[in-house]
């Protein structure tokens, strides 16, 4: 089982990408990847979860910790690309009320 986390700077936004399954085994890797992010005042961070195929409370806890740190250090973070399943998890745990999250991008009809 594989999990990847990496970041790219894009203008004024730091874009993070998380891929794979997040559970007790892969969580330390995610935690390290997020802890390595240097947060500066006013930094905007977007973490794309489009390619996350599984997450449980271990992973949710890590995102909560990251969210709290970024807020404390004056930055902003948004989680994007959440599948319906993962959005449901954020909803039933009450996290969608506390965190800035966004579902999968809808294909625009022209």
């Amino acid at each position, binding site marked *: *089982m594989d999990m990847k986390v990496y970041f790219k700077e894009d203008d004024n936004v730091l874009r993070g990408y998380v891929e794979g*399954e997040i*559970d*007790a*085994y892969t969580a330390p890797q995610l935690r390290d990847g997020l802890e390595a992010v240097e947060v500066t005042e006013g930094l905007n961070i977007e973490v794309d979860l489009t390619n996350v195929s*599984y997450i*449980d409370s271990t992973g949710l806890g890590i995102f909560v910790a990251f969210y709290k740190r970024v807020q404390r250090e004056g930055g902003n973070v948004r989680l994007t690309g959440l599948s319906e*399943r993962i959005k449901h998890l954020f909803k039933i*745990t009450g996290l969608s009320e506390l965190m800035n999250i966004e579902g999968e991008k809808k294909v625009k009809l022209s």
Partner: protein
Amino acid sequence: MTKPFDYVEMKFPAKSQYVSVIRLTVSSLASRIGFSYDDIEDLKIAVSEAVTNVVHHAYEGAGEMVIGCAMYEEKIELMISDYGSSFEYETVKSTVGPYHNEQSIENLREGGLGLYLMDALMDEVLLANNDSGVTVFMTKYIAREQVDEVAEKVTTQ
């Protein structure tokens, strides 16, 4: 008389690298008896939460965990235990009491989201705490239309 369910039992070292193996095995078993995609995803999370709990809290050093799956026509029952040895499924089942709602709120505050998610994603969650360890016992029912589908497959085989 034959039992109304098939019982599968797995024993693993209590290490995090086995959480995904257990989750995928339970997913395969659930799929075999006709659970829907969404219900299988719920089961995967619930079993991972219970197993992760054993990995993190049950042992100071090395230990083992036992995962029992009883597959009925209309439901799956999962038992996750940090007993070092296998258990007599029906004996352990008879010792667990109801899991109260007021208990879950306390546990949510102290133990994070794991137990809360198990409760939210399964139809029933029972906890047995005794001298030899902790056992989580949980049940999920198959949605009615899927039951009919499975019953039909069984009779035509």
